[in-house]
């Protein structure tokens, strides 16, 4: 594997890592397998597109708006649709999020059509040399920003009171109720945080690659793989899972041909499910 290939793989993996964490938190902590996650990522891309077209705003800035808007959308969806259904079990929320995906997908098709869109910032073509490899500036920036966002998510979960409250609910729901933590509120914040991460990823994605509603299905496939590789609800696990998927797809495309690129990720996921069902870095909670 050449240096160039490894760098490409890691840069792609960084975005996957950010993308996978939101999905993994929603599943692992709020107990919702969010099939509309891909639609929320793409929605973030279109939000950045609009800000770029209207105000010529750089996606690295408009991502703040994407994150905020998706946070609010996530909170509203949780409160009005998911919370009443969650008692019915995972099948109910699965069906609901699948329906949501269709609704969001069709809204996007209606508003922006199925055409591929791109956001071309002025520095899109710049790159710099590292050894004998070339690193595109914009991919490098997106990687750094993704890393910072992952670390901020980690800090939020580990250091803030609300973050610890979310952990407490995930660790022992009855214990959390016993100390007066509003369990539903923690689930809501966690779910909305997940959709915010989806939106942020969408904006970063839009600064580099072209996008259309067609991507939506494969995104859900990818986040499934990442979350399962890392262990549900595990931030660093999902980050590692994202990097691994980036590497697997990049090398897979070179060695087996690009038609096998996505299949390889699925093969890895199934292998993990068979040999380490709690994820590569996941461990059962203490006790």
């Amino acid at each position: 594997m050449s240096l160039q290939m490894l760098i490409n793989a890691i840069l792609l993996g960084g975005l996957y890592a950010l993308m996978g964490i939101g999905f993994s938190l929603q599943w692992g902590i709020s107990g919702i397998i969010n099939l509309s996650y891909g639609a929320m990522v793409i929605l973030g891309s279109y939000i950045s597109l609009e800000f770029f077209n209207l105000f010529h705003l750089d996606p690295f800035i408009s991502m703040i708006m994407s994150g905020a808007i998706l946070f609010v959308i996530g909170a509203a969806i949780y409160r009005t649709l998911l919370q009443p259904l969650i008692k019915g079990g995972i099948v109910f929320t699965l069906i609901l999020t699948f329906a949501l995906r269709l609704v969001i997908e069709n809204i996007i098709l209606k508003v922006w059509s199925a055409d591929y869109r791109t956001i071309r910032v002025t520095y899109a073509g710049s790159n710099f040399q590292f050894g004998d490899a070339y690193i595109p500036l914009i991919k490098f920036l997106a990687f750094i920003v993704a890393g910072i966002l992952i670390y901020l998510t980690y800090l939020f979960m580990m250091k803030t009171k609300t973050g610890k409250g979310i952990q407490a609910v995930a660790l022992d729901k009855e214990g959390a109720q016993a100390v007066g933590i509003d369990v539903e509120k923690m689930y809501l914040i966690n779910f909305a945080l997940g959709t915010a991460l989806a939106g942020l990823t969408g904006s970063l994605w839009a600064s580099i690659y072209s996008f259309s509603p067609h991507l939506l299905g494969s995104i859900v496939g990818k986040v499934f793989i990442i979350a399962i590789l890392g262990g549900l609800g595990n931030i660093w696990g999902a980050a590692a899972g994202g990097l691994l998927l980036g590497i697997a797809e990049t090398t897979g495309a070179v060695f087996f041909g690009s038609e096998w690129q996505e299949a390889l990720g699925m093969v890895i996921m199934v292998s993990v499910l068979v040999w380490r069902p709690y994820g590569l870095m996941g461990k059962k909670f203490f006790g």
Partner: protein
Amino acid sequence: MKDNLLLKVSNLDAGYGAIQVLWDISLEVKQKEVVCIIGANGAGKSTLLKSIVGMIPSSKGEIFYSGNNITKMASPERIKMGLGFAPEGRHLFFGLTVEDNLLMGAFQRKYNKSVKEDLDFVYALFKPLKGYSRKLAGNLSGGEQQMCAIGRALMSRPTLLIIDELSLGLAPVVVDDLIDIIAKLRKERGISILLVEQDVKVALDIADRGYVLEAGAVSIHDKADRLAKNEHIKAAYLGVA
């Protein structure tokens, strides 16, 4: 209502969905009083405590706390009003440190000086916890876990501490320590205590009054020393004929 009455449960029915567990329960806890609930497995003791804390909705009857009707209140609000709950099985957050477990008990308070003071108070009360403050709660022994659970409940500054199964699974020495601590909490902090206890001897020893639950209803309630002499209780719970 008498003004020294802290908790008043009147004619309460509660259960899980269609299955009714509690039937027409009435119970009172006065200020600075230690009250125990005894009864066989499945009598509804834990269900009663959970419905007082608000983790299980009640279908009939009312619950008053410090003169306020809390029957319809969600459990976080009840905890905020001064109920502290150490549930059966402790339900600690094993993946968090001992100190974070304790701080979670103060979740609804602002983390300021008074929380720090309460933390020091809990460490002074349960000395072993101090040394393990940065360790994961899952590493604690059974007795230490119970200390952590009671300490966590104290962190919300309760006026009524509710403990489900104080001595279950603990060594006799540890139980003696906990009994001393309960006496101390009442004496020094003026906290009332409502506890469920499977060891009836221990229960009647520390409590002022007791309620006997049988098949989800209160069958007898009396002063603890009188309950200890009751022939039915002697035969059914104390193992003496």
